[in-house]
Structure formats: structure tokens, C-alpha cells
């Protein structure tokens, strides 16, 4: 599975980094930096929680070929 951010929808809430610190951190202006796009299996549930938790639905979890 792969994490992808819709940069235009994203408005710097920062909840994704709070929910998935293993893969996401925030830059100096509060926007997510995806440290590693491909999500290891054990983190998929938490990644799904981060996707659902995004207040503007800017984060997506795609199949690897996505």
C-alpha cells in the first residue's frame, strides 16, 4: 500500500503526522512530509486511521501500483 497526499486539498491540519508519526512528519509550516510512501503491513491499520482522520480527506492509501 502507498500513501499519497493531495497537496491542494491539504491545509496543514497536521493530524496525519500525529496519527502516523512512523511515516509522516510536518515541515516548518505544518504540512506533511511523507518519510516513506510505501506502508509496511503492520502500519496499514494505523495508516487507514490517519486517512480517515484527515479533516479534509487529503491523505489516501493506494494500491502499490497507484
Amino acid at each position, binding site marked *: 500500500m502507498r500513501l499519497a497526499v493531495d497537496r491542494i486539498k491539504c491545509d496543514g491540519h*497536521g493530524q496525519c503526522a*500525529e496519527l502516523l*508519526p512512523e511515516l509522516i*512528519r510536518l515541515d516548518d509550516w*505544518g504540512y506533511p512530509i511523507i518519510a516513506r510512501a510505501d506502508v509496511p503491513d503492520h502500519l496499514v491499520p494505523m495508516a487507514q486511521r490517519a486517512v480517515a482522520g484527515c479533516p479534509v480527506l487529503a491523505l489516501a492509501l493506494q494500491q502499490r501500483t497507484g
Partner: protein
Amino acid sequence: MKPNSTPLSKVSACSQGRFSGRVNTGAMNGNTQDRIRARDAAFRLLNRLTTGAAVGALAGVGVFGAVSASTIPGITTTSQSASTTTSTSTGTSTSTGLGSSSTPVNSASSGSGVVVSGGT
């Protein structure tokens, strides 16, 4: 510096003053391990607050029910035993033994411990 040669930058390059950056001061910049611990602790807090609210709400039904019973003058009720204990029709016995979640439900609404910081 001879000023006459044409610069490459667009002549009308806007030179309005400094751009003020908005620097994120959130707690998100700790290292990953700390942030993982913070997340897990926050989830535990979420669960505790939710259960506390549920218990408080159930207790509330009983308390408010009882209070409204005692304040209605002259309503003839078939069963006089308006119980003051917090047992309610849903049958789940909610002994008040749950000392730990002593904060009643409306504390959740006042968001104790929540400081509004917001962006600058």
C-alpha cells in the same frame, strides 16, 4: 557595479518586503519515538475520556430523572419508590464505585486542560 546592463530577473520582480513565514511550533517536531509514545498515550486518554463520559451520561440519566421526579408536585405515581440510586431502566447497574472517572461528563464539554493555541 554598472547598473546599465539588463538583469535577468523580471524587471518588475516584485520587491515588496520580506515574506513572513508561519513556523509550525506544534509538538510534532520531537523525534519519532517520542511522537509514537505521545500518540499511544493520547489514544489511551481518548478511551478513558469516552468511557468516563459514557458512565457520566448514564449516571446523568438517573440523576436528572430523580431530580425531575422530586420537583414535580402532585404527580400521582403508581410506584412511590422513585429510586434515588443510579440504577436505570436500561438495567446496567452503574455502581458509583468507578471512583477513578470521578469527573462528571460535562467536564468533557468544558475540555479541561485544553488550552487554545491555534496557529499564529
